[in-house]
């Protein structure tokens, strides 16, 4: 442990030969250092700010909405942006501003929940395969390889068309088919971590495997996982938008950015009512852009070899 002889008084004093300083107290903890490195990433920080704003609008959608998102105003059908309807209205007179911020809710919830599911599955599979090795490893990782070989969006399309259309169906479809990348990463980490002395020590002490996996090893996997999780949220948002765009995702009248964009498949709407599809299109791209900036910032902050 640290030398108790040194105290605060001599830290500023010139170092004398033979003096033992409490080096740790001057250094930052790894977590603190990572956060500091992230904060130096200006683009990522800006992206956090923008994304937080979008999330706040989504969270307080019922407060900041001007009209209920499903309210039909027959006197103002397909009108462009006005003082009453900031972003205009669609063909049945629903307010696009309200639908955009409610759509943010759906998109963000789908992105976060689907990623929560896929991360959990990937963690469990990867941890089991990496920790136990042998045939468990063989079976799980070969299965992972097969699932990874095939473009999973094709299967998602297929399932989305056949299962009942609800928001939760979409969440589960995306979540249940996006785990292989997490399994691979966690598997690799576990392979190297399980040989470390502290794990061997824990095993010698007779600590049950389950506890070693979840309490001793798992926390060490989180750092490399954060960036991947971030990118994955963006990917899930895109998949939802894509499925809804094809008419296979979130069912109307619930607005999501994807099913608002579906309107643009109609050439007349695309040409004559651009305010109907421009807001969800911009919001989707903006959100993904922010997520990518944040993910990049995290990856750089976590990578100890990189000098920022």
């Amino acid at each position: 442990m640290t030398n108790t002889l040194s105290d605060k008084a001599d830290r500023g004093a010139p170092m004398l030969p033979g003096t033992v300083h409490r080096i740790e107290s001057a250094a930052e903890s790894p977590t603190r250092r990572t956060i500091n490195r992230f904060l130096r990433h200006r683009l990522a920080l800006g992206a956090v700010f923008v994304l937080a704003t979008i999330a706040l609008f989504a969270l307080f959608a019922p407060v900041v909405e001007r009209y209920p998102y499903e309210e039909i105003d027959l006197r103002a059908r397909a009108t462009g942006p006005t003082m009453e309807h900031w972003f205009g209205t669609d063909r049945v007179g629903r307010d696009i501003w309200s639908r955009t911020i409610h759509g943010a809710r759906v998109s963000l919830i789908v992105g976060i929940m689907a990623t929560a599911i896929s991360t959990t599955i990937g963690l469990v599979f990867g941890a089991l395969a990496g920790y136990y090795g042998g045939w468990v490893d063989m079976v799980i990782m070969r299965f992972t390889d097969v699932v990874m070989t095939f473009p999973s969006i094709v299967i998602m399309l297929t399932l989305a068309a056949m299962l009942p259309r609800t928001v939760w169906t979409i969440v589960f479809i995306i979540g249940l088919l996006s785990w292989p990348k997490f399994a691979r990463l966690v598997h690799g980490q576990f392979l190297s971590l399980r040989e470390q002395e502290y794990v061997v020590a824990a095993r010698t002490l007779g600590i049950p495997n389950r506890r070693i996996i979840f309490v001793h090893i798992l926390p060490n996997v989180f750092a490399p996982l954060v960036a991947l999780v971030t990118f994955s949220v963006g990917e899930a948002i895109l998949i939802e938008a894509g499925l809804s765009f094809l008419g296979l995702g979130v069912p109307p009248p619930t607005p999501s950015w994807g099913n608002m964009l579906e309107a643009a498949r109609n050439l007349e709407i695309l040409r004559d009512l651009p305010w109907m599809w421009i807001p969800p299109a911009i919001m989707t791209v903006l959100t993904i852009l922010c997520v990518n900036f944040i993910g990049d910032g995290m990856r750089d902050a976590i990578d100890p070899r990189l000098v920022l």
Partner: protein
Amino acid sequence: MFKYLIRRLLFSLPVLLAITIIVFALVELAPGDVVDYFRSPETQMTEESAAQLRARFGLDQPVPVRYLNWLGSVLQGDLGYRFVDGRPVAQVIGQRLGATTLLVGSALVIGIVIGVPLGVFTSLRQYSSWDFFLTGVSFLGISMPAFIAGIFGLYVFAIKLNLFPTGGMRPVDHAPSLFESLHYLALPAFILGLQHIAQYMRYTRFSMLEVIRSDYVTTARAKGLTEQAITWRHVVRNAILPVVTVIGFSIPGLVVGAVFTETIFSWPGMGTLYLDAVRGRDVPLLMGMNLVIAAAVLLVNIATDLAYAVVDPRIRYD
């Protein structure tokens, strides 16, 4: 090399089999079938005739039996017949495969021809304003999914500027000339390639910067070689290696993007056909297409590894 190729192909077979089993199970275990698709309030189909129809499609048999029947005929080279209109699946896929291959192939070429040189260009001018500008644009590029790029592209270039047709593959009234075909192809192919231009550019830049810092490049410079020679003979040739792999692995993504691009531009390819098959619960067509897609992905993976060996003489598959 030849032995390696044979081995890889043989190893692909169980993977292919596993994929078809998974897809078949998912499709068959989901509620509903093609008969439900035919049924509507207007047709007023009785339970009895629905059961008859199911028996005709063989849907009254248990799922494993149906899978084995399907597999049996596939092994004899028969992909079966569409539920919806009874046309042979192989023929239907054959008609659409060309259009998608053309679209995806063009997008891939556009991605490589524009993306890789841009990556080399920016890496040689790191931190210049060109570098900042193009890296920023590429960030926008990778964050823009094919369907949103498609909507914007269609709106700006086809509707507002009227430079390209709004959809389809050829004019309806006459056989297209080569120029006309290219005119129809240009916008969808470029839109589909957009994300990949950005991706290849970013990766090439990254890879170049890694190589530029290596010792042998300093040595080359110390020997007094011209910058031209260093860049093209020493840096690019090594930096391009990992890019080949990235390009190979990005091809399945192009196929997925094609589903959206084809929908937006009414391109008569596999993507729109797949959506038809999915909506109509057309199991034979669905299975046939999944088989083709899976085989294509596996072949592309093998081809990528072989291409890697071709560009990098240090790698030998024996």
